[in-house]
């Protein structure tokens, strides 16, 4: 009895256990730190940004970064073709990218989980119908389908987010369904059923929490795909519209100056790369920490 209780005491909480495995992956910790920093900067953008993101300084068109000859220390990363401070636009742009990631993942996750749970739980023709529709969505390259959806809905940030969420959703449906199918036959589900749980309670309260790990990992990876796809749509002129300081849209505006002013092209792309890389590093670490197969007991 005594040993049992001491064992009980020594057992780390789930969160502490997760952090133990997660923190062994240095890349993942760096990714998380960079991501948190980005969130911080985005939230406090008006404080960090040295200039207003859309103010045009008419005397300073295409000013190079401050450390290069001809640069000005007021404009650390230089100015764009209409004299706006690039650093300030990037800082405000972080808000758009993170917002896009959150909204897209929220829509795709909620929709995917509901559809996946329904398919896996109801089986039969409901399952077949839902999964066939997901197959159809997956038959198109995601960017192509998103482009066409935006063409139908009209270019703009909101429509781009809806399109990307719709395209990312099948992955969540498939994951949830697979997890539900493997969980639904377990004893604890049967026990809950015998105890008189209704269908909704069984689906969302009994089964869903046990399918969360792969969904969390997928959500993280979808977060970075959403940012990339939204930037790509912005770049193609189908996402956020100028003068929004969205990073992809900034790149589209900068395209014609690539051979004259490398900085207007380089920095927005670098911002996208760093953000996506940080989230992917974090996601990789999350997968390793949450996947019991990889844990060294």
């Amino acid at each position, binding site marked *: 009895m005594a040993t049992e209780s001491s064992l009980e005491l020594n057992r780390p909480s789930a969160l502490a256990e997760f952090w133990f495995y997660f923190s062994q992956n240095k*890349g993942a910790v760096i990714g998380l730190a960079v991501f948190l920093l980005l969130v911080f900067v985005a939230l406090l953008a008006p404080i960090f940004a040295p200039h207003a993101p859309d103010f045009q300084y008419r005397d300073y068109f295409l000013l190079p970064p401050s450390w290069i000859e001809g640069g000005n220390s007021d404009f650390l990363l230089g100015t764009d073709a209409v004299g706006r401070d690039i650093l300030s636009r990037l800082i405000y742009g972080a808000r758009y990218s993170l917002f896009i990631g959150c909204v897209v993942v929220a829509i795709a996750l909620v929709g995917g989980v509901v559809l996946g749970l329904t398919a896996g739980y109801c089986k039969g023709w409901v399952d077949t119908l839902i999964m*066939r*529709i997901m*197959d*159809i969505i997956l*038959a*198109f*390259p*995601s*960017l*192509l389908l998103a*482009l*066409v959806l935006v*063409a*139908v809905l*009209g270019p703009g940030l909101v429509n781009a987010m809806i399109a990307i969420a719709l395209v990312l959703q099948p992955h969540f449906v498939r994951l949830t369904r697979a997890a539900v199918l493997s969980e639904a036959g377990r004893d604890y589900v049967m026990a809950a059923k015998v105890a008189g749980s209704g269908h909704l309670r069984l689906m969302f309260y009994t089964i869903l929490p046990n399918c969360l790990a792969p969904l969390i990992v997928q959500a993280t990876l979808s977060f*970075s795909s959403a940012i*990339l796809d939204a*930037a*790509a749509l912005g*770049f*193609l*002129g*189908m996402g956020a519209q100028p003068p929004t300081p969205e990073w*992809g849209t900034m*790149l589209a505006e900068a*395209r014609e100056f*690539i*051979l004259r002013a*490398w900085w207007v*092209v*380089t920095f*927005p*792309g670098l911002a*996208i*790369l760093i953000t*996506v*890389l940080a989230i*992917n*590093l974090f996601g*990789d670490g999350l997968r390793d920490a949450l996947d019991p197969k990889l844990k060294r007991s």
Partner: protein
Amino acid sequence: MLRFLLGRLAMLVPTFLGVTLVAFSFIRLLPGDPIELLAGERGINPERKAQLMAEMGFDQPLWKQYLDYLGNILQGDLGTSFASKQPVVDEFFALFPATVELSLCAIFLAVVIGIPLGVIAATKRGTFIDQSIMGTALVGYSMPIFWWGLLLIIFFSGTLGWTPVSGRISLLYFFEPVTGFMLIDSLLSGEEGAFASAIQHLILPSIVLATIPLAVIARQTRSAMLEVMGEDYVRTARAKGLSPFRVIGVHALRNAMIPVITTIGLQIGVMLAGAILTETIFSWPGIGKWLIDSITRRDYFVVQGALLLIAAIIMIVNLIVDVLYGLINPRIRG
């Protein structure tokens, strides 16, 4: 094997019907009716409009329109481009070789570099080499390729002046396309320097398009190799005293290739999406650029046709990958 193949084909039918439904709905879902979209801002008088509606079948009930659409697809008729007045199918297949050529070069780069990198990372697991390769792969995987393309243009075309910025071949050369593949056509033309020019034009777009698949293949190869290298038969091969090269290259790699081949197949869809961006950056005259131009021009019959054809091609490629997978791995034939 035949049963496996037929089963897979049968599974494609409902998906393909769904794809046709998506393509069909696309034009009907656009705000405004199709004729007014075609007429654009000039407008159109009501009689002419009614006449056109009847000609194109838009006055029929929806289910009849859909059946007609299906019938047309089966006869290979995907409508006519509004801009060029050419059948969409003809335009598609005139431009398709350019995209295939680019994609093949990219997939070649991705496989030839990605697999060895993955194998090296797996054999040097946990070392600095492994970490550098996997770090680089993750950067490649996270790359916004439209920006990557612009950077390469700034450096190789702008600063160094080594490669051209756009197109498939220098304007100095002109010859009739035979195969549609510029590398082959330039050789067949016999013009001096044409082949070199074609390669110069191809190199940057291929690198850009190869970036993400390369990263994915390297990561997948590494994890597949790690899984296989713990197996008994690899240990046996090692115990027999075979050279490490033979153990890794023959015993381990052959078995590790099974999931990697699936990954390569799945990259085809990624490639076609990447081609939209890559072709736009490098003004590569393939279907990706054609599609973007058509969306901008509001040439919706082209978009509809391209949507259907691209989905069909991806489905066929996935089927081929499935069959190949069944051939190498008899266990799943069932």
